[in-house]
């Protein structure tokens, strides 16, 4: 490109190019397609590839390849942090499936991927990590359901482990020996699918059921590092969302719900979770979360909420704000997952389903802005809790909360 010094034409050309959506040709992808390698291994009798069941939806990934997202018949591979500390996150994902009448299973034959522990302590090894993954995948395969991964770290970790398994014969041999001992087949899914990819692929179908108007809501999003920075080619990109320069995840569904997604200068930054840090060295976690994420969002956008797609990001961005407030820092943005906001948009009970009482940041101003009379639903939930405490009610069940409850505002 020939340019005149100082004419600005070079800069204009760059700006023009940057203004165009990024469209990538899969034939020019810089990485191999691991699925082709999996099928080759299957043809050699080394492993079984668990096919994505029909019906499925097709989406584009970072290098323009097509990825299949199963609509139903899914095995909900749960997340340690979501189930332990943010149960409304998991409940919301499943509630959405129930709303759409989709077949799924909530397994108890599942362990943690143990990736959080690995990234925190290094106290494991590739054989153990791979065997844990393959045991869970075999359990899903034997149950006849396709794994839908709830956790961003499980998703990233499994992709990393899959690379190792595909490329190292001795690792396959070792893991096969262990699977034989467990009387399980060596199975790897055709696609590793994160729940937020399901939410993204289903967003238009979901939006048809929206009852809460969210067109006046402004949000910042934070995409999980382990979603789009590990084995990057599996993450969903769409030239029509953020011009295809960044992953379309979260932004796509929020836009489908009518929410305005605002940019901020530290979009790419990690939340500060740190794996070991969040558990035993939180001075780092909260400092980073406050100064590089929450305060930047506040200063540049002042959004109504921050929406995430992973366990650790939710915990970090939600729980770190208390100490920021105590130190008069510029904080105060309620945190939600895409699944929770989507469930709210469809009229889910804010406490029985979305379980907002597990959140630390103040969600009340957002509820007021959405026109949701949260106090009424809180009173209902408190009555549930008291009835459980007295022994008059055993538990809250799906029968208590399957039906959307929030009054139509759209």
């Amino acid at each position: 490109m020939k340019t005149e010094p100082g004419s600005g034409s070079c800069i204009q050309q760059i700006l023009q190019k940057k203004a165009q959506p990024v469209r990538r040709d899969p034939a020019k992808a810089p990485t191999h397609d691991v699925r082709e390698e999996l099928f080759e291994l299957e043809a050699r009798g080394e492993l079984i590839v668990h096919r994505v069941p029909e019906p499925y939806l097709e989406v584009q990934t970072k290098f323009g390849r097509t990825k299949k997202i199963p609509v139903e018949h899914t095995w909900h591979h749960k997340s340690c942090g979501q189930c332990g500390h943010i149960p409304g996150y998991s409940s919301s994902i499943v509630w959405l499936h129930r709303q759409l009448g989709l077949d799924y299973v909530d397994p108890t034959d599942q362990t943690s991927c143990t990736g959080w522990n690995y990234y925190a302590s290094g106290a494991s090894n590739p054989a153990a990590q791979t065997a844990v993954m393959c045991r869970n995948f075999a359990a899903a395969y034997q149950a006849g359901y396709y794994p839908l991964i709830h956790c961003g770290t499980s998703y990233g970790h499994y992709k990393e482990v899959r690379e190792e398994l595909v490329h190292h014969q001795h690792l396959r041999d070792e893991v096969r020996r262990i699977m034989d001992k467990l009387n399980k087949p060596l199975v790897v899914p055709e696609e590793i699918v994160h729940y937020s990819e399901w939410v993204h692929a289903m967003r238009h179908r979901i939006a048809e059921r929206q009852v809460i108007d969210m067109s006046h809501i402004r949000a910042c999003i934070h995409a999980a590092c382990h979603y789009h920075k590990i084995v990057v080619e599996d993450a969903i990109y769409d030239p029509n969302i953020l011009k295809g320069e960044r992953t379309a995840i979260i932004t796509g569904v929020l836009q489908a719900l009518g929410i305005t997604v605002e940019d901020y200068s530290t979009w790419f930054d990690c939340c500060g979770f740190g794996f070991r840090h969040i558990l035993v060295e939180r001075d780092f976690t909260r400092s980073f979360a406050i100064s590089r994420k929450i305060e930047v969002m506040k200063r540049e956008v002042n959004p109504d909420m921050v929406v995430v797609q992973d366990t650790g990001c939710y915990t970090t961005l939600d729980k770190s704000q208390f100490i920021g407030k105590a130190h008069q820092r510029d904080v105060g943005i309620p945190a939600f997952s895409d699944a929770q906001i989507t469930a709210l948009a469809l009229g889910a009970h804010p406490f029985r389903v979305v379980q907002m009482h597990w959140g630390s940041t103040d969600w009340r101003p957002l509820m007021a802005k959405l026109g949701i009379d949260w106090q009424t639903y809180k009173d209902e939930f408190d009555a549930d809790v008291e009835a459980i405490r007295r022994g008059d009610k055993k538990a809250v069940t799906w029968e208590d909360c399957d039906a959307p409850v929030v009054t139509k505002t759209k």
Partner: protein
Amino acid sequence: MRAWEAGKQADCYPHVAREEKERLFREIKDDERYTDYLYGCYECGICVSACPSARFYNYSPRVIAQAMAREDTDRVYEILIEDIWNCAQCFSCTRCPRQNNPGGLVSIIREVAVRNGIQETRDVLQGYSRVIYKVMLKGNQVSPDMLQPEFFADWGTWVEGFTKNMREWRRAIPLESLRGVTDASWRTDHKTLVELYTIWFETGNVELIREVDEGLYELLKNTMEEELEDAEDED
């Protein structure tokens, strides 16, 4: 801990034998992921600009890639002793234009540090032992009953409120596998946990814990062995 001094040449651990440093470096380099994670370094610093830990610690993913590429065993030893636990394992550093993965290199070095029972690593992981116990025995990384005010005071008054209501709140979750469970994230079948214990033993992961915490190792080993024996008797 002594601050990192950029550009310093001195051997900060002269009392550690060169053979020992070289042995540890060889162990790192022998990991089959090593060549997938290191391709050289432009010294452009993109990894540093993306790295959260570089903003808060004397820590640099670029230095890690550089020291590895130069096979600077003194510097690699320092990294093993002083730096690896600062990494947040977010992999923001994979923005590297040379496709280096400094976070992945840190994972390998951490594994070597654990395997070799490096005292500084044992010290760092001391407060983390209860989490290793949880994930290896219960098959979950965290649980509701870990949320106690003395451990999570910085999360505010919410934790205290939660502690008072934990049992009832856990029963008030519609998702069946979570409902009422307080000592794990979800209900896991006993058979599934026995399979998990088998994996830990078969892959040498139980023995590895001995290098981190002898007491924890004994506890995990005995408990899991008992469960495996019971499962065999049932069969």
